[in-house]
């Protein structure tokens, strides 16, 4: 699903990523860990083309997205779900409208949109919050809405950049459990985090970055 080959990302004189290679198979659940500045966010941003590699190949679903034409970037992003630390919800829209936003732009019928949105809300356990605004929800609930939005288009890949960064331990655990359920539906999940407790609890594959380099890649690993 995701292949990185000798990826380098350089900002002026500083390397954010240096010769990173990795391979994530379809259906895997992978934690990307490391301290702040290790290069996690840069790697995640590269996957949805918010950043371009300075050198190397980034393959998503077999396509080298490093050479992707800028016009095709929205297509790439629609093929994956993205979850952010700060949720990135439209505060003026209801939960329903937030989740439906992207699929509405694709010309899908309102009947199908409704079915998809409520299906996604069911997965995150927020069917009764469809008419609420994000400001009326707790942080954990807002992140669950953000997960619902990420999965509403049925993507084969979901990437979550520090999804529990703004949450307390209880909400963090709930959010991670939802991501695990999503993974059980066959969706590949890549989560960047520096939350030891979560990584150690779930015992998934753990890729560790340090100073822009991959230093460890362990199946059923922990975060030391």
């Amino acid at each position, binding site marked *: 699903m995701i292949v990185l080959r000798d990826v380098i990302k350089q900002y002026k004189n500083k390397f954010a990523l240096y010769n990173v290679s990795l391979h994530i198979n379809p259906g895997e659940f992978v934690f990307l860990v490391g301290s702040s500045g290790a290069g996690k966010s840069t790697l995640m941003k590269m996957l*949805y083309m*918010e950043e371009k590699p300075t050198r190397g190949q980034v393959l998503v679903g077999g396509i080298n997205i490093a050479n992707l034409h800028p*016009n095709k*970037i*929205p*297509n*790439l*992003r*629609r*093929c994956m779900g*993205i979850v*952010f630390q700060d949720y*990135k*919800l*439209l505060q*003026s829209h209801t939960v329903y409208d937030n989740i439906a*936003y*992207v699929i*509405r*732009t*694709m*010309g*899908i*019928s309102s009947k199908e949109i409704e079915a998809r949105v409520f299906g996604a809300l069911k997965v995150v356990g927020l069917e009764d919050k469809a008419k609420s605004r994000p400001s009326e929800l707790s942080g954990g609930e807002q992140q669950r809405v953000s997960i619902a*939005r990420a999965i509403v288009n049925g993507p084969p890949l979901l990437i979550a950049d520090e999804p529990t960064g703004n949450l307390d331990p209880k909400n963090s655990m709930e959010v991670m459990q939802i991501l695990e359920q999503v993974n059980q539906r066959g969706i590949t999940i890549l989560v960047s985090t520096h939350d030891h407790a979560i990584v150690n609890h779930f015992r998934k594959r753990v890729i560790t970055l340090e100073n822009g380099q991959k230093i460890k890649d362990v199946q059923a690993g922990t975060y030391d």
Partner: protein
Amino acid sequence: MTNGSTRNRLKQKVKSHIPKDWLTEIRIAYRILIETIKGIVQTGFVINLAIITSMAAILLIFGVIFRTTLSLSSLVDEMGGTLEISVYLEPQADVNSTIKNIKKIKHVKNVSFISKDKSWNDLKREIEMPDIDNPLPDVLRVKVDNMKNIDPIMTDVKKLPDIQDTGYAKDLAQKVEVVNKISHTITLVVMIVSSLLTITIINNTIQLVIQSRKEEIEIMRLMGVSNWYIKCPLVLQGAIYGFLGALLAVIPINIVQKYFQAMHAHFSIPVFGYAQGLVVLSVILMGVIFSAGGSLMSIKKHLQV
């Protein structure tokens, strides 16, 4: 059967006649329209009103000046039609062959002959003349299609045999031509200035819209909303401002047009049949095209999509 179920059945019937791809496109177009309306509503009534009236004022100035130029052009054309070149013939001149030769010259509309006897009798009727021999020559009156062709025609006529002299109301023709040129230049300048003002106003407005919706647009972009789906409502918003401004400007322009029509009727100057429609169409097109252009420029500058 309830109204709701009748409506649903009708909806299904209509849908069944539309190919699936079209339905998708129609839904997308509908969503873009909704986004555009939302954008206008979010901008606020007072700002919308300010933008539309500013646009209307600019387009009104353009429309009135354009209309004035069209009337002046009519006047100039009419004068060009009435202005004649007088060609004075030598006493031994072959009138018929000279008429034939003049008619061959390009841009000559008509040639008429006035004998020296007729001229002398007319003159004697107007002024008391002493009893002398008729000193006047035979004259040909040459009508030209356009005033600007008078000079070259006169040059050609002078080259013909048996021509004593030529003449026409040169001063008047030149003055009218200058006024016509000035009015055309003013229209062009006003059009350029109006276009720039339209673009600037819409550019700044859309910049404000983009600033106020920056976060929303950023989220849309990250979620994979197409670039053109983000851009389209902003371009349409600009175009709608231009269109509404133009519609508002058309009302006083029509009143001005009525005065022009009355003036044309009074002086018996024919006006282009399409003048009214041309001015209205130009104002609307200018409003819409330059407003959409202003939006596009703003999007290009302030929106990294």
